[in-house]
């Protein structure tokens, strides 16, 4: 297959809007190819989009679906010759997730949080998501065994557990959510600051985060730790964010990437002392990211309208449900985590929501290097991923931002600096924020770029970048990005003008890290005791079998040669 004449933006390879023919053979970008030709003359061409943080599969997504039959009604689409039926808007069914990502020109998405115990469910759903490649980050931040290793200051044992946990869950990376809080919640409490000991466990969130970061680097995992900070969603929490970030300053990365990725930064960039004097501290956060390069973030933009918040931060969801007086699901995951789901609607005239909206914009625009800040809506917490084109058109147009600011609560202009921000992103920034940077941050070498050897994931948009001025013609930008002209996934034309042409099966990435046998043996002794005494299931039934991941891409990691991997 050859894609002719497109205006290619491939910042990872230093290509900024050049007319290039792309050749594809056997699912890869190659030097030269024959066969079908796709005419992309003068059209915007980028690598397939990569979503590094999205809640697309697993028990809490399904809890959202069960709680929201009203949401299912919002996205009904009938089956076609290629497609199975779609439902839902904020919590779409599995099929719809694949089709809608393909319509956007996205070809990879990572589920942001799955406890080991629920991973089988997560993989069953991931397997049903067509077209896109995917992976899942495994939760470690409130795990009893993690906290025990940290308390004993035994990082080798912790490394053995993390490696085992990734294998048990067929997970891709280390996700930390409100460290310590998840299990404190099991006893009806929460942690307040990062130096507050977790009740009953005698470790602090700071120790948990730092130990996991060190272990993550000692195992040379492709992705860094991926953290949802303590005190998320509370006024004044930006100090917690900066305190937490400072923990990782001295840790050396084991690969060419960050040592910590901060999830949905928008929810952790709040100033003020209560909802009454709630304000933005995004400039302080952006300043930190401009001065330090060991950390990256995704913005977690909110957009006005319906959303379903879902997180392993169960105490946060308890607060949401009581504040908003709405339905709430709460879930305890034995020795690992807790989680919650709360549907909500972000309103333009609500001062808090308006400020939250502006904070996300500020973070993206004030952080100078787009490689350090990637685009997400923390689907479906801030907004469903189908609204990414709206976020892009806002980032590219000051005019559009001002229009929106005049429509929303006035405090968004007074309590944030958004009105004064002149920056308008260009296509290069957008290509980095939506493709190149997420792939680099996740450590996916064949994604997010169009160099020879890369996966043949290509998006062609019906927009002429040399003619359209995104600043004033933001509606054209939004329209073009919402429905890709062509989405090619692994060399197969998956979507054309909003119609699914083929639904190939995607692959699932997971990481197999090796550790020393003796560390693993020590760790297994701990685990056996935990399974005998506390878990409701047996250790032998715990690990996700290979059959649940029929199309795996196993990435080897670890400090030791692969042969020494314990069975």
């Amino acid at each position, binding site marked *: 297959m050859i894609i002719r004449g497109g205006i290619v933006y491939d910042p990872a390879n230093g290509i900024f809007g050049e007319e290039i023919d792309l050749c594809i053979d056997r699912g890869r970008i190659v030097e030269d190819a024959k066969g079908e030709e796709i005419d992309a003359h003068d059209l915007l061409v980028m690598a397939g989009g990569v979503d590094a943080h999205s809640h697309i599969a697993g028990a809490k997504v399904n809890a959202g679906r069960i*709680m*929201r*039959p*009203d*949401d*299912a*009604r919002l996205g009904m689409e009938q089956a076609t010759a290629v497609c199975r039926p779609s439902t839902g808007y904020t919590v779409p069914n599995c099929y719809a997730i694949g089709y809608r990502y393909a319509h956007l020109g996205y070809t990879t998405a990572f589920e942001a949080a799955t406890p080991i115990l629920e991973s089988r469910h997560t993989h069953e759903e991931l397997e049903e998501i067509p077209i896109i490649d995917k992976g899942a980050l495994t939760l470690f931040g409130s795990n009893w065994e993690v906290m025990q290793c940290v308390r004993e200051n035994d990082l080798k044992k912790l490394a053995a557990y993390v490696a085992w946990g990734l294998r048990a869950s067929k997970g891709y990376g280390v996700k930390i959510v409100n460290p310590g809080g998840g299990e404190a919640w099991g006893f009806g409490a929460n942690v307040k600051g990062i130096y507050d000991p977790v009740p009953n466990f005698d470790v602090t969130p700071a120790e948990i985060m730092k130990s996991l970061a060190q272990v993550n680097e000692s195992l040379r995992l492709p992705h860094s730790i991926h953290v949802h900070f303590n005190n998320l969603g509370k006024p004044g929490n930006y100090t917690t964010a900066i305190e937490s970030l400072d923990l990782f300053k001295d840790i050396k990365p084991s690969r060419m990437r960050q040592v910590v990725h901060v999830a949905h930064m928008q929810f952790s960039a709040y100033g003020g002392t209560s909802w009454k004097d709630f304000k933005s501290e995004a400039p302080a956060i952006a300043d930190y990211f401009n001065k330090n390069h060991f950390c990256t973030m995704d913005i977690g933009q909110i957009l006005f309208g319906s959303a379903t918040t879902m997180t392993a931060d169960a105490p946060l969801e308890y607060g949401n449900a009581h504040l908003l007086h709405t339905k709430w699901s709460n879930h305890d995951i034995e020795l690992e985590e807790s989680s919650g789901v709360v549907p909500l609607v972000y309103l333009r005239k609500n001062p808090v929501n308006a400020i939250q909206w502006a904070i996300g914009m500020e973070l993206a625009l004030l952080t100078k290097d787009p490689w350090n800040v990637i685009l997400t809506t923390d689907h479906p917490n801030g907004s469903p991923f189908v609204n990414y084109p709206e976020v892009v058109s806002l980032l590219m147009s000051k005019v559009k931002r001002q229009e929106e600011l005049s429509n929303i609560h006035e405090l968004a202009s007074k309590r944030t600096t958004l009105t004064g921000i002149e920056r308008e992103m260009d296509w290069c920034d957008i290509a980095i924020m939506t493709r190149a940077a997420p792939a680099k941050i996740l450590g996916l070498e064949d994604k997010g770029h169009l160099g020879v050897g890369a996966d043949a994931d290509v998006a062609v948009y019906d927009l002429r970048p040399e003619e359209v001025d995104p600043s004033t013609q933001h509606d054209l930008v939004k329209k073009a990005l919402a429905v890709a002209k062509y989405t090619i996934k692994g060399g197969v034309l998956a979507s054309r003008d909003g119609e699914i042409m083929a639904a190939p099966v995607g692959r699932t990435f997971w990481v197999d890290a090796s550790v020393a046998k003796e560390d693993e043996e020590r760790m297994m002794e701990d685990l056996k005791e935990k399974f005998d005494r506390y878990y409701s299931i047996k250790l032998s039934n715990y690990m996700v079998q290979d059959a649940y991941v029929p199309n795996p891409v196993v990435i080897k990691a670890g400090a030791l040669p692969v042969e020494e991997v314990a069975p």
Partner: protein
Amino acid sequence: MRTITLRPLRAFEVSVEAETISPSRFASLTLGQIRTQEVFMGNWKMKLADLFKVEGDEPLATPEETTIVLEGDFSKVKRIGEGMGAGTLEVRGNVGMRAGSGMKGGLMMIRGNADDWLGREMSGGKIVVEENAGNYIGSGYRGEKYGMRGGEIEIGGSAGAYLGEHMCAGTIRVKGDTGDFPGAVNQGGTIFIGGDTYLPGAEMTKGSIMVRGKATMLPSYQKAEVVTLEGIQYQKYVGDLVENGKGELYVATNSA
């Protein structure tokens, strides 16, 4: 005035989804076009004329000037008059689930019984049922926070459970008894119940419910004064206190 009559060609074993049967949609269609309207019977896509005999006046009219008469048993035909905005729809028999859902205006006369979800989330117009109605009359659909937003429903017989759940505005009158939990999670609107009922107004925050027969009360209602309306004495209650509600509940004293 244009009248169109539909008669089922057979007794349906599998439910038919016929949201197309509505004055708003038929008004601008010729009889030939009406006969080819798409309906689903189970998962089979069919034409209206495959299932119904369609007769009536040919000349087009406005929706207001259009009357649809359904003769026979329509108890397996769902979604009749969905979203209708004007005109008249008369059912000479029973009607299936979700009749008049999302209705905005016009009149629906049902000479027999109505099934569940009648007039769900309707915002205007009037539905009259001469006999009994099922559950969830004028309520919000599953998971929805807002039910009936306006309009009127009158039921000559009795109604099932969850009458007017999540109701926001409008009026429902039931001559007979109702099932459990009428007016649950109400945020407005008025419900009259001629007969007996069980646990009315659970989690109601606004709106009013009036019961002429016996009512088993929730403990979370506070007694207020006794009032006389149309010559009948009612005990007034305020609640639901579980939700800090300001809903008003009137229960006739002579029946208690």
